[in-house]
């Protein structure tokens, strides 16, 4: 019970930070930028907007890139060697300390994903309608060229609306969002332990840029989709609508599970030969 309480407190102490504030402000701004154009259209045509907009936002490559950068900024304090951690590490031992940090990464990923969902709904007020359907607004945008006429900055996939249930789609998107976020955190953590923090941040940035690279090269270099976690947030890719050789939802789960297992192993092995240096920054 005490261990659970300590892990929870460790997460809370580190999650509610200035980095979270910047993440929220940045994400709110970018989501507002894209979703506000949908809201304006909603006001013009007088159709309410359903809350299931995030899977459509996920199809925008610039959003994926900026989300990636925000996540990397949030995790930029890896490998969590702030000076106050020294007292905790000396009590936990290296192995348990790494376990606690891996847990912290995943708890943060779940929380960031939840925040992202909430932040995507906020710009829709007061046009929001709580419904289990996609709604007339998104149907209109998917089936007509009204989006172009009204300068709507998101594209609404007709296939997604016709073939998939909104609640299930949102759930899948939430899971993918969480997996991408946590996996990038894990990669950065392992790299920061094996090499250093700067390399880890560069690695994270590379993964973020990879979503843009894939969006431009998907016809020729389809394999990139397997190693670009932020590209997975484009559900059309997972549903096989972007290119033939793309991972499915279950493939993403398997790739992520294997990667997490390997990255945890590397982190646990390397922590024993790492000289522990502490930083003053939060």
């Amino acid at each position: 019970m005490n261990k659970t309480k300590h892990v929870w407190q460790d997460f809370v102490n580190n999650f509610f930070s200035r980095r979270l504030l910047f993440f929220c402000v940045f994400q709110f701004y970018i989501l507002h930028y894209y979703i506000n154009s949908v809201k304006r259209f909603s006001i013009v045509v007088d159709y309410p907007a359903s809350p299931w907009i995030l899977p459509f936002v996920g199809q925008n490559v610039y959003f994926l890139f900026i989300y990636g950068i925000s996540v990397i900024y949030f995790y930029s304090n890896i490998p969590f060697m702030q000076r106050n951690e020294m007292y905790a590490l000396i009590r936990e031992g290296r192995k348990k300390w790494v376990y606690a940090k891996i847990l912290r990464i995943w708890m943060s990923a779940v929380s960031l994903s939840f925040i992202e969902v909430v932040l995507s709904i906020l710009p829709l007020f007061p046009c929001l309608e709580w419904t289990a359907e996609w709604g007339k607004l998104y149907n209109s945008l998917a089936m007509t060229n009204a989006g172009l006429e009204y300068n709507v900055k998101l594209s609404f996939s007709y296939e997604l609306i016709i073939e998939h249930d909104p609640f299930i789609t949102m759930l899948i998107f939430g899971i993918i969002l969480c997996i991408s976020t946590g996996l990038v955190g894990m990669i950065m953590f392992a790299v920061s332990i094996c090499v250093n923090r700067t390399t880890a941040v560069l690695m994270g940035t590379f993964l973020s840029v990879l979503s843009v690279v894939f969006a431009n090269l998907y016809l020729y270099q389809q394999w990139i989709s397997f190693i670009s976690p932020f590209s997975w947030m484009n559900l059309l890719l997972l549903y096989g609508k972007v290119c033939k050789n793309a991972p499915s939802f279950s493939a993403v789960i398997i790739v992520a599970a294997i990667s997490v297992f390997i990255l945890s192993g590397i982190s646990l092995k390397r922590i024993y030969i790492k000289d522990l240096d502490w930083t003053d920054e939060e």
Partner: protein
Amino acid sequence: MRSDFTKDKNIKVKDVCKYFGKTQVLDHVNMECRQGEITGIIGRNGAGKTVLFKIICGLLSLDSGEILINGIKRERQADVLPSVGIIIEEPAFLKYYSGIKNLEYLYMINHKNNRQYLESIMEKVGLDPKSKKHVGKYSMGMRQRLAIAQSIMEEPDFLVLDEPFNGLDSHGVNEMRELFLELKKRGKVILIASHNSEDINILCDNVYSMESGVLKVLR
């Protein structure tokens, strides 16, 4: 408590060298810290005291030589030293928590929370356990006292204290000296580093000096 003496806890440092790149920061260091004794190291800033302490605690690896804990050689890829209380470099806590909350946070890692006990530890180091003041607003001396509290609160076998008197006024220094002498009587292995030779001379049974990574026996 005296019965612990039979276990003969000690730290032996044998021929330890440490390099940062091409710079040698520890040069064939040999020393021994025994149970019920205070071992002191005097040296200027940058002499290598903190590096030696970090190696003893298992926070840094050594390039050659060996460390024996209670006669057992520590493996190269060993974990941190078990049952150790440390103050290394500046004390650092969770700034938005009170002193007692910080202690609870650390104490809970290996024990069931015991607020009453932790309050008594805070009183022992001269801090008000009821104070709601955030550690971020503590003076340097108060943070140092809290660091001492966290180092002793779990009754560790080993105390590795790097500049434990930093920021303390003369009254505080005297109080902490008495506390360390009491811990010595209770059979702790205590290792203290200071740039102030007076602290070391008054407290320590064995005294070393360190300069440019070279450790010499003074007493």
